[in-house]
């Protein structure tokens, strides 16, 4: 049982104004989606992520659907970023990190010994919290992925296509040779997304992609995400619940359990269609979090 959740705390009443519950109108439009995921891209069964002896994420079982936007929400230190980074084996880069349980991508265990993490990362792209453009030109940033992957393509066309899809082309088409550092934070993040789709991945993982952006840039990225979801499967970690409500089809709420030694372990509390999570959560901890009582 989570220590964060205090059962003695006053439970929510029907009076929305008094609970301080967030405005969920964003999730109330659009079609209802079923609880179960039909077209499964990721199938997680009892996934546990360790850093050395420390169990950062315990026992996650969930399915992520194709061409859906799945949001991971929860307080800091609940393991949602850690879990996200294990989807494309970026956790391999941290000495001592390991994954237990089954994390299957289209039925293939991506932690099987014969799997090449490079191949996994080519299919499952990632966008980071801070726009990490390369210290190169805008053009080179987009062309880098296809080049290192040995893709035989018309690079000029591909760069234009990716920048257009990332809603950046009109802003940079005359400055392709300029350094990517000359762009604003929001433009840089869209460049990173363009760079990511240039290697033609199926999945895009986004680790708090708007954390360092202003609201206008954030809105642009969110529009872009919805646009990209037609062709890509997107998993996004966010601290911004409104953002999760606005963009995602499904939401997973994570929290941190504190064990007897005071060590925090992330765990999945509740997962389901975003509208249900925000309007009728099953777990009181989810209710507390989305109504702003903690986190």
């Amino acid at each position: 049982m989570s220590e964060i959740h205090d059962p003695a705390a006053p439970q929510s009443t029907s009076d929305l104004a008094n609970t301080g519950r967030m405005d969920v109108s964003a999730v109330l439009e659009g079609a209802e989606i079923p609880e179960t995921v039909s077209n499964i891209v990721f199938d997680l069964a009892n996934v546990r992520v360790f850093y050395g002896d420390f169990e950062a994420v315990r026992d996650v079982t969930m399915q992520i659907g194709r061409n859906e936007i799945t949001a991971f929400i929860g307080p800091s230190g609940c393991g949602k970023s850690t879990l996200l980074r294990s989807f494309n084996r970026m956790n391999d880069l941290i000495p001592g990190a390991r994954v237990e349980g089954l994390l299957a991508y289209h039925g293939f265990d991506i932690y099987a010994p014969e799997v090449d993490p490079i191949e996994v990362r080519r299919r499952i792209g990632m966008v980071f919290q801070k726009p990490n453009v390369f210290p190169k030109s805008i053009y080179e940033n987009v062309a880098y992925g296809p080049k290192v992957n040995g893709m035989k393509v018309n690079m000029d066309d591909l760069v234009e296509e990716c920048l257009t899809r990332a809603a950046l082309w009109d802003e940079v088409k005359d400055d392709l040779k300029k350094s990517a550092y000359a762009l604003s934070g929001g433009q840089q993040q869209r460049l990173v997304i363009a760079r990511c789709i240039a290697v033609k991945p199926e999945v895009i993982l986004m680790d708090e992609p708007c954390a360092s952006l202003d609201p206008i840039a954030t809105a642009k990225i969110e529009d872009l995400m919805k646009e990209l979801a037609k062709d890509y499967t997107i998993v996004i970690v966010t601290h911004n619940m409104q953002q999760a409500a606005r963009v995602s089809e499904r939401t997973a709420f994570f929290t941190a359990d504190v064990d007897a030694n005071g060590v925090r372990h992330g765990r999945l509390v509740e997962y389901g269609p975003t509208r249900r999570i925000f309007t009728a959560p099953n777990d009181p901890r989810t209710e507390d979090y989305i109504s702003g009582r903690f986190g």
Partner: protein
Amino acid sequence: MTATLVSPDATAPIDLGGKGQPLADKTFRWILFLCLAVGIVFLFVLLAYVTIKGWPRLTPTLWENMPSIRRPEQAGAQSAITGTLWVITFTALFALPVGFLGAVYMEEYANPTSRFTRFVEINIQNLAAVPSIVYGILGLAIFARALALGQTVITAGLTLALLVLPVIIVSTREALRAVPQNIRHGSLALGATLWQTTWRQTMPAAIPGMATGTILALSRAIGEAAPLLLLGAVSFISFNPTGPFSAYTTLPIQIFNWTKESREEFQILASATIVLLLVILLAMNAVAILIRNRTQKRW
């Protein structure tokens, strides 16, 4: 304690003059400044001394003429200048690739927590502190004798390469470490291999830092005399080196030899050559500083 809680606009007039800087504070400031000044002042005294003393010989004959025992007023240091260039070229040729790639291994490939890595790391730092004369003995035993390379440019180049290798490795590692981790992660997340990431992202981003460290390391090698004395740099040589297996002398050796002579002309000649050597070293350091300033903070 109520007195401290009275709001400032009460009755007492406001005095922002304070108590003035206490004497101890001022004294301490001056002591700090003097300590700094000692080093700078001595550098300038040295520069002024050798420049004034060597002034009569700071003419083109210094680098146009060969050394001469009989006619010091006509002698020059051309063979020492070309010898220095030859030796430092071979030093760079050996030390740079090995140093860069060794540093890349340590920083990008090796597991930082492994015992072996930490052992190597400590020993590289120890190596940087080994006196240069010890490298001279090593070079004499291994390159000159065991490998029978003799008293040649290549022996000197190899020995000086060993001498500066730890410095190059340490500075290259620092340059690589200064490249933000998220650049590497960005590259790896696109499906690039570790080698592609290192070669196309990390190393290009680290080049300014690597260049700075390298230039400083090479300027140290240029100023070295001790190991070369052991390795048999020739004290008097009136021709330029003709290749890697040629006999040679270098500027520090030439200076050392001239200062040993009793005649005043040689002392003047030595001073003039010291100025020449210092100009070369300061110029190299200036280039290093220039590169550092040009490329600071790109992320």
